[in-house]
Structures are given as structure tokens and as C-alpha cells.
């Protein structure tokens, strides 16, 4: 068998560009197009939207993405797999059906996978929060969402049923890509080596342009052409789980050993034990070969038995983040920014906000690299004070930005460009559930 399966990645985060997915559908010669659109916090925000309106709670830009790709599903048999269902896959299904009707796509089978929402399960159980050890249920109404990371297994029934669009909630990112491989090559769900190899390809694809030249360029050192037209990635998967990472010829960006190496270890801890719901993947002996023309062969990723339990991401209300910024320029800019920071700290202390809760950083100097920057970088020609704190009380959080803004009239000379903001914080915690306590279900709709 030499037949390969071509899978594209149409988005690497909720707000990602729309047009690269259209390029993939038009010119990528792909069978599957997967969109990874669900950051940890996105689902908690979607849960709040669903509570306010039962027809909402799916991911942002669902309409735009479906309008862009549904015609290809109907005409070319393209299959779309995405976690854009967010907190409400059934609502995403109805919305997608409505779009298909409006576009007049013709017959199209659409599916929604549910079961990742385990809020009631964890509130009724004794499961501990991994980070604190306290029972999840003690979080009470601070707990906004609890979603288990489903694996490829949950997507398979929809693919077997012939769905051209599969909408899920929380699914582990690489599983979105692994499911089509398992389905097309009829891999056994206990074939850990192939599942590990496929997961390596899924991991390389899941952040879209991050493997094709995005998040990589450093002018004069690591040059990348035309990031304004960066092509999103394609994996040409072989039946044994190895494959080639590439992109549509003529698009911007690049695929080479360096882009693939960087993305291989992105968000990885132990490269020999990358845990997903499908497999314990092992990238520790992965091989890469640059074939030229933006093609890199990936081989020798492996795997062992999958973890016993499923990871559950908990969205928890945790007060408010208040922040303020203001800039200083020219001679002594840094000293005036420092002085301004100290004034704000003293004012906040007087308002009952201790300085150990307050982050003071100077943008252009030490905001990103702290002590590393303070060891011998040249003094900037402008310095922007930023003060931020996470506080339980919204009014207290607002005070942070107000005290920074007050520096206009009450602070050091030449303070300009103040901005302030306060927003609710949703923190993410973790718990684990045995697989048997998570049941998934498929709902199918037919576009006429």
C-alpha cells in the first residue's frame, strides 16, 4: 500500500485567519480539514454565553469558517473536523445546518459529538482538584465549566456515519487529526505505535502556521518569506503513521527542519511521554528529513498504552484583573517610569492592596525578561509603565488602572498615553475522571 492520506489544518486558535483554510480546500488536495479553535479558557467563556442564550455557546467565527468551507464539503467531499462546538456542539450543529441551507450546498450530513461536558458529574463526585487537592464540588458556583478531553475514539462514529462536518466540544488537539487517520487506515485503537506516530503528525499540525514559518521568523537570522500569505500545513500520512509535513506551493512561509523541530517540542514536557486520551506518545527518537521544496519527512515517533483516566479542564471564576499603562520618553524616561511605579504601589497600599499582589513592569525595559533584561541592555528612549493585579473585588481591580491614569496630573514629568482596563478572570484548574464516567454521543442532521 502506497496510498497516503492528506490532512490540512485550517486554524490553530479561535481567532485564526480564515483565508488559509480556503486555500487548503481549493488547492491543497486534502481529504480532511481540521480546525483547532478551543483554548482552555474559550470553553468557559462559551459556557457563560450558553447560560445566557441556549442557542449560543459555540466557538467564535463558526459562521465565517463554515461559510468559507461548506461548499467544498458538498462539492469535493471534503470532511471538516473541528472543536468549534465549544460549550454547545448541538447549537453549532443547528447553526451549521442553517448556513448549509442558506448557501444551498445540497445534501450534506453533519454531526455533533457531545459528552465532554462533565460539570454535573464532577459537582456530584468526590474528585479532587489536581493543583490544590480540595474537592471540585467545593468550588461551588465559582466553577463555570468542566470539560473532559475526549480522544479520537469519540470522533470515529461520526466519520463512520459519513458526516462531512464533525463538530465537537473539548477534544485533545492532536486527536482531531488522529481520528481521520484511524478511520481511513483502519488502525486498531490498541496499536500504540501507529497512534503515537499519528499523534506526532497531529501535534505538528495543531497550531497551524507555527510549523510553516509562523512564530519563527527572526530577520537576518531565520528568514521567512511572505508571512502575510503564510500557507497552513498539510500532513501526507502513510499507512504506517509516518508522513510528510508540507504546505500548498506558492503560499508564504516555509517548512524545513528548523520549523518542524521547534514545533515538535512546542508545549511538550517529557518528549518520551506526551499524554493524550488516545496514547502515551513518544517523540524522543523522532526522525526528520528535509526533502526540499517545503517538505519534511517525519518518522519513528512511537507510543505506549493510553492513560487510564481522562484529563478534565475546569474553568473557575477567580476575581478580576485590573491594569494600567502610561509612557515616558527621552532623557530619564526609565527613572521616571520607576518613580511612577513606586507612587502607584504606595497609593494602592493605602487602598488596602499589598504590594506583593501587584505586578509592576516597564515595557521596553524589563516587562518580558525581568532580571535578564536588567543585566546590561541599553537604556530605552521610551519606557512604558505597566501595573497589574488580580484581585477578588472588581472595584479594587479598577482602582489599579485609575491610579496609573492619575499619574497624568500627579506623577512624574511628561507622562503620556495612559490606558486602563479591568476584566473578570477565569482561571483553569485540572481534575481527572475514569473513562467510564464520560459517555459520548453523536447527533446527526442532514442538510437538504
Amino acid at each position, binding site marked *: 500500500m502506497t496510498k497516503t492520506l492528506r490532512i490540512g489544518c485550517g486554524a490553530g486558535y479561535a481567532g485564526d485567519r480564515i483565508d488559509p483554510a480556503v486555500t487548503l480546500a481549493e488547492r491543497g488536495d486534502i481529504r480532511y480539514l481540521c480546525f483547532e479553535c478551543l483554548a*482552555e479558557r474559550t470553553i468557559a467563556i462559551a459556557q457563560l454565553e450558553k447560560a445566557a442564550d441556549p442557542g449560543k455557546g459555540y466557538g467564535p467565527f463558526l459562521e465565517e469558517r463554515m461559510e468559507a468551507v461548506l461548499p467544498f464539503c458538498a462539492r469535493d467531499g471534503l470532511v471538516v473536523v473541528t472543536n468549534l462546538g465549544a460549550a454547545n456542539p448541538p447549537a453549532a450543529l443547528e447553526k451549521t445546518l442553517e448556513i448549509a441551507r442558506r448557501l444551498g450546498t445540497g445534501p450534506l450530513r453533519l454531526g455533533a459529538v457531545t459528552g465532554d461536558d462533565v460539570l454535573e458529574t464532577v459537582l456530584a463526585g468526590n474528585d479532587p482538584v489536581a493543583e490544590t487537592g480540595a474537592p471540585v464540588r467545593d468550588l461551588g458556583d465559582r466553577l463555570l465549566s468542566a470539560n473532559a478531553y475526549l480522544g479520537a475514539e469519540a470522533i470515529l462514529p461520526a466519520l463512520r456515519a459519513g458526516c462531512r462536518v464533525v463538530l465537537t466540544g473539548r477534544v485533545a488537539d492532536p486527536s482531531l487529526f488522529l481520528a481521520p487517520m484511524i478511520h481511513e487506515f483502519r488502525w486498531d485503537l490498541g496499536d500504540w505505535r501507529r497512534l503515537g506516530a499519528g499523534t506526532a503528525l497531529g501535534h505538528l499540525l495543531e497550531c497551524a502556521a507555527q510549523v510553516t514559518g509562523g512564530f519563527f521568523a527572526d530577520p537576518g537570522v531565520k528568514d521567512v518569506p511572505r508571512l502575510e500569505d503564510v500557507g497552513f500545513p498539510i500532513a501526507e500520512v502513510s499507512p504506517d503513521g509516518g508522513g510528510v509535513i508540507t504546505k500548498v506551493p506558492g503560499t508564504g512561509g516555509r517548512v524545513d527542519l*528548523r520549523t518542524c*523541530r*521547534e514545533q515538535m*517540542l512546542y508545549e*511538550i514536557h517529557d518528549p518520551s511521554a506526551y499524554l493524550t486520551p488516545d496514547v502515551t506518545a513518544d517523540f524522543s527518537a523522532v526522525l526528520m528529513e528535509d526533502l526540499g521544496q517545503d517538505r519534511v519527512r517525519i518518522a519513528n515517533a512511537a507510543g505506549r498504552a493510553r492513560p487510564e483516566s481522562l484529563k478534565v479542564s475546569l474553568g473557575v471564576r477567580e476575581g478580576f484583573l485590573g491594569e494600567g499603562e502610561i509612557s515616558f520618553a527621552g532623557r530619564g524616561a526609565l527613572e521616571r517610569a520607576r518613580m511612577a511605579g513606586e507612587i502607584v504601589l504606595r497609593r494602592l497600599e493605602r487602598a488596602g492592596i499589598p504590594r506583593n499582589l501587584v*505586578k509592576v513592569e516597564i515595557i521596553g525595559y524589563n516587562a*518580558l525578561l525581568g*532580571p535578564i533584561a536588567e543585566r546590561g541592555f541599553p537604556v530605552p528612549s521610551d519606557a512604558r509603565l505597566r501595573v497589574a493585579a488580580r484581585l477578588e473585588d472588581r472595584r479594587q481591580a479598577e482602582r489599579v488602572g485609575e491610579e496609573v491614569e492619575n499619574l497624568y496630573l500627579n506623577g512624574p514629568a511628561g507622562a503620556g498615553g495612559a490606558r486602563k482596563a479591568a476584566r473578570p478572570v477565569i482561571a*483553569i484548574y485540572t481534575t481527572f475522571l475514569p473513562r467510564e464516567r464520560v459517555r459520548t454521543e453523536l447527533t446527526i442532521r442532514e442538510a437538504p
Partner: protein
Amino acid sequence: MKRKLHEIAHSRAGDKGDITNVSLFPYRPEHYALLREQVTAAAVKAHFGDMVRGEVLRYEVPSIQGLNFVLHGTRSGGVSSAPDLDAHGKSLSFGLLEMEIEIPGGEG
């Protein structure tokens, strides 16, 4: 002679909660041994100073000439609740590349 890492290596940072991983790869294959020898977990921990509250672990992936550093406690609470400007810690790769190592004379 002392050289900064960015002269011989590239890097990428990613986050999971308040843990940041920073990978490191040499531009030239012959420099991998140098990175392995000098860019130890302890050296990286010292380089980042109080930006890293917890431990630093190092993993090696020689088949792609990679080192992977896992920095515990870089952000209080992770991306959704950290007060830091770069709540993800995505810029920390360029922090690692500011580290100095000793390159044997004439090389690089």
C-alpha cells in the same frame, strides 16, 4: 570565548498552566554537544533567576538535536489568570537565548 546562545542556537517557548517549556536547537550540528554540556538545567535555572519559582528539568532529543527545558512556576496561575504582560510566557525563548556560553576559540 564567551558568546550568547542566540549566535549559535534557536529556541521556542510554549505554556501549560504556570509551566513554560523552552526548546533549544543549534544552527550547526557540531554545536549540539556544546549545548548539552553547558546549557544544563541548573545553568538555565540560574540564568532566569527569580523568574522561575520552581524547578527546571531538561530533556534531550538527540535525534532532532533538541534540548527541552521545563520551567516550573514562571507565571502565577497560567495564561488566563497571570497578571504578566506576556501571560503565556511566549517571549521566554528569547530570554534563554541571552544566556552566555563558552565557545572554544576560533569556532562558531
